[in-house]
């Protein structure tokens, strides 16, 4: 049963920002959005083995073997120069993990863990892996109490959610914009599926948190905030809303030129939501 593999960008055994408690976070490689504001842009693309990163590696940790990128983790000193030169926002340092390997890691760190979160990239692109992983966790005596969360952009249809929700405890869902042209400009995609997902997850009782990224001059207008308020009220005013602030950390390309979101701006937005009767609003604890 554990033969399914996933392409993994990174694994953390300590994360306090990806759901309740301390979590094992598995960042899956590849995303169906292409957000200029992404703070992990190297998780978007999937490697096409072009080899352009090889000369950028100063410790010879990368090579081509049978036409495919081979990565030597022991040689790598994590300078990330390969990420800088990748023309398609991919990551040659990804590793394939089997469900069994993730389970082993979860067992090793079990006492420290409240749960497991799959993030990305867009993890639901590797839905079969998630389903198999979560099912295995729920079936494992030692791991069964770990909560299983997905951090998603919502670009997954109802049939997909129906398959994964029986073994999923909660979903953190990002809405990038309620204005479709803005959403299209920010992500390259329409927002219809994301909004549908939010409604579907809420109805199923699995929407742990609705996340909204505030970008000055793009998604912090009164009109956007009022759409957010209207949408949350439609779901239920007790929905947990997490307002995130656009920062430059990790961002590449044109978005580096965008203005950063200030604490004052976030607080103003949070106040607007609270004044409209939305009580469960979380704001960032740290501004970089």
């Amino acid at each position, binding site marked *: 049963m554990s033969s399914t593999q996933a392409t993994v960008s990174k694994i953390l055994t300590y994360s306090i920002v990806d759901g309740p408690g*301390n979590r094992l976070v598995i960042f899956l490689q590849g995303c169906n959005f292409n957000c200029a504001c992404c703070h992990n842009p190297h998780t978007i693309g999937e490697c096409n083995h072009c080899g352009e990163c090889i000369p950028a590696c100063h410790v010879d940790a990368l090579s081509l073997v049978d036409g495919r990128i081979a990565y030597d983790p022991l040689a790598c000193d994590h300078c990330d120069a390969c990420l800088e030169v990748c023309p398609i926002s991919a990551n040659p340092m990804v590793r394939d993990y089997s469900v069994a390997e993730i389970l082993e890691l979860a067992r090793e760190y079990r006492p420290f863990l409240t749960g497991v979160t799959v993030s990305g990239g867009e993890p639901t692109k590797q839905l079969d892996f998630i389903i198999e992983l979560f099912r295995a966790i729920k079936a494992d005596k030692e791991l069964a109490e770990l909560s299983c969360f997905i951090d998603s952009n919502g670009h997954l249809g109802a049939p997909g959610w129906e398959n994964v929700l029986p073994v999923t405890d909660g979903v953190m869902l990002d809405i990038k914009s309620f204005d479709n042209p803005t959403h299209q400009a920010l992500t390259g995609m329409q927002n219809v599926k994301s909004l549908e997902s939010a409604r579907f997850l809420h109805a199923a009782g699995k929407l742990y948190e609705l996340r909204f990224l505030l970008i000055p001059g793009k998604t912090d207008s009164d009109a956007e905030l009022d759409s957010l308020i209207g949408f949350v009220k439609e779901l239920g005013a007790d929905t947990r809303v997490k307002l995130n602030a656009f920062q430059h950390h990790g961002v590449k390309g044109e978005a580096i030129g965008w203005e950063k979101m200030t604490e004052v701006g976030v607080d103003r937005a949070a106040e607007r939501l609270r004044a409209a009767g939305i009580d469960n609003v979380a704001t960032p604890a*740290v501004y970089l």
Partner: protein
Amino acid sequence: MQDTIQKLRSIANDATLSPAQKRHYLSLEAENMLPYPTLDAETQEALDQRVICDMYEGHAPYKPRYVLPDYSIVLAQGSEYLELPAPETLDEAINTLMIAYHHVPSVTGIPVYIGRLDHLLLPFCDDISDEDLYEKIKLFWRYLDRTLPDAFMHANIGPTDNRVARAILRVDAELKQIAPNLTFLYDPQASGDEILAIASNNIVECCKPHIANHPVHAAAFDERGYGIVSCYNVLPIAGGASTLTRINLKEVALRSSGEDDFFAHQLPRYLDLNFRLTQSRIDYLFNESNFFQSFLVEERWIEADRFTAMFGVFAMAEAVNALQEKEARAGRYGFDEEANALGHRISAVLAKAVDGRPLNNAWRGRALLHSQAGLSDDVKATPGVRIPYGTEPDPVTHVEALSPHHQYYSSGISEILTVDESVRNNPEAIQQLCKGAFARGFREFTVNVASNDLVRVTGYMVRLSDIRKFKEQQGSRTNTTVLGAEAADVTGILDRKPRVVGNELYPGHSQ
């Protein structure tokens, strides 16, 4: 003599110290005019070079370093000497404790242990409403901070979930005082998740309480129990510690030609010298000072044979890194498995040595090993077995690197796990870290949340705003701010990612 006069004058005229603080420093100077307890030449030399250290406890140990009275005795019987009847109400019980504290000596003159308060007060709370209990604890807390202003003063609560413990946590989070320091004794079987959740929320509010692994500590002591005092020293109730001496492991490593010389010759030599220093100080306290003539002994608040000696070590990180360099190995302490294993081996050797060396007038005839958290003048020497400030890995990796040490340090090994402010949105993470750390054998730890004004310098709390004010010559009401200010200047503690470091006792007044 001229130097001495000048020193005394500078204390008397100091613009930043209160009269009480001046009196304390003047008394230290007076004590240190006396000759030191008898030491052989070799021990004296190692002490002069500060390879071994007496924590500047003073030349005439006329009181034990740490005293942990069994306060249940005065609450049950009152005190003949103090002309106190046995208390019958909660007000009387708190009042009795408030009086008792002023008769408990310590190295700083302020009691380092004020009792397992929930356990002591719970029998008096039957007819008290939760709201009255909260009001009374609030006044008690304010009294403690204002009259005994030293963060070495330490209260314990737990391991059960009870009304008094909850009232104390509520008050402590609300008042955010430096004093008293607070430890919650956690027992996964007895405490329950609810009170651990409250404690986690308090940590987010004010970096307190410290959390201790009750089952592990209880097993290391006897049925009279233990208390966590000062900055995380674990000692027998109705006793305490006569003295705390320590070895600077970095200095021992620097005097070694390599790993073999360290283990075969240098470490055994300085262990021996530190035992001699320890015995000499115990001998003075027991044989010359007349301390044990006190009413505290007569009325059985304390018993002479329940005083241990704390055998401290520090600068493990620098010692391991120095030995790694001598052996031409690149791995650094805290990050490299081989370097970490060398540290664990040193701890095992230390524990065996302490266990194998009989001492006169020590509880169970032995010292207790202690990972010592530092002095304000320690330069480039990391407290205890900690990972150097500002370089710590994430808390999970941190616990994994240090947990194998914990089995050896029965009289305390304080660790500080630094968690960024994101935890404010997620205090449940602190609960989980606690469970993980204890599952790995951690004896105790503090969580420090970045950017709290109230921060921990080793074991005690200081206010960052107080340090700033003190530097502007306004003086400070709380004794530990003085220590914090000195530690901040000398050891770079505020460089620490959040801002915590080690410094247990200020050696005396300095210009």
